[in-house]
């Protein structure tokens, strides 16, 4: 079966990723927390979040945010995309009733010493119009049709983040 596949020979710095907009409902916050086994009350208990944490509602937990970014990246690459690393900095929280909007662009395309093709992406999440998270990700993509980064093992897979 043919899958959507982004290959390095067809990508260049400056390319934009398609935006992704999601209306966030309370169930999204609670489901995300439970899926990531995060039982802390600020992610499911409105009274705790508002009275103890002093925020306006329950809010999305960090592991689930990482899963959203991963999904956003591989929506773009297709299933052959293999994330090497992801780095994020949180500035604000995502609350129910808001619309999350993921945006991104290709910062660079390169190959490592083992011939693995990489796209480095700059990503941003806004929610309710506020920038809540900025993120950089490095994802291995096929160098050309027929290549598959998932087949790389051991010395052929070198995703370590730059300092």
């Amino acid at each position: 079966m043919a899958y959507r596949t982004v290959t390095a020979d067809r990508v260049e710095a400056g390319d934009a990723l398609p935006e992704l907009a999601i209306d966030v409902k309370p169930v999204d916050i609670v489901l995300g927390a439970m899926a990531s086994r995060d039982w802390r009350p600020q992610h499911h208990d409105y009274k705790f979040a508002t009275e103890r944490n002093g925020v306006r509602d329950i809010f999305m937990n960090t592991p689930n945010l990482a899963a959203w970014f991963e999904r956003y990246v591989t929506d773009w690459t297709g299933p052959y995309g293999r994330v090497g690393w992801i780095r994020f900095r949180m500035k604000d929280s995502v609350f129910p009733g808001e619309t999350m909007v993921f945006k991104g662009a290709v910062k660079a395309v390169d190959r490592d010493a083992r011939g693995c093709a990489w796209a480095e992406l700059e990503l941003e999440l806004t929610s309710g119009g506020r920038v809540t998270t900025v993120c950089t990700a490095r994802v291995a993509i096929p160098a050309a049709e027929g290549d598959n980064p998932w087949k790389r093992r051991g010395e052929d897979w070198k995703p370590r983040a730059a300092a």
Partner: protein
Amino acid sequence: MSERADLPAEVQSWLGQRRYELEGEFDVERGYIFTTCSSVQNGNPIFWDDKAAAEITGGPIAPPAMISVWFRPHHWAPGRTEQALPLQVHFDLKRALDVPEAVMSDNTVTFGEPVRPGDRLRTWQVLRNVSTPKKTKLGTGHFWDIDVEYVNQRGEWVGTESYTGFGYRRD
């Protein structure tokens, strides 16, 4: 390692050392994989379609971003009296450096071998660095870097989470 007059001996002894090594409480399993994909509406066929997984990833795998999920303790378990804190080294540093407040500023996750259903992962934490005292708008304290390493049951590296924290006392 050179002595650091600004750090307690206890903290110096932690630098570069593996601490809190433990095995996950359960095997990596597909129920959580499907629930996680559902929670972020991730339709990537390598997680849902066995034929696609066989063709692309050599069989089913877990979304790499789930790496820490396999170590979060059950909310309740028989005989448990204390809840283990994730990133215990962070809390140890707050106590040892006598800084009541702390924030995480950066989080980087690096992914190695794919994690597959049936894997039983191991993890440990390593304190990589503690800065000299710094004054920021939050207060005065130390920055620290902690790595959380993950391997599978064959000892293959499957991922590392790297955190930068700042522990401080308000000025």
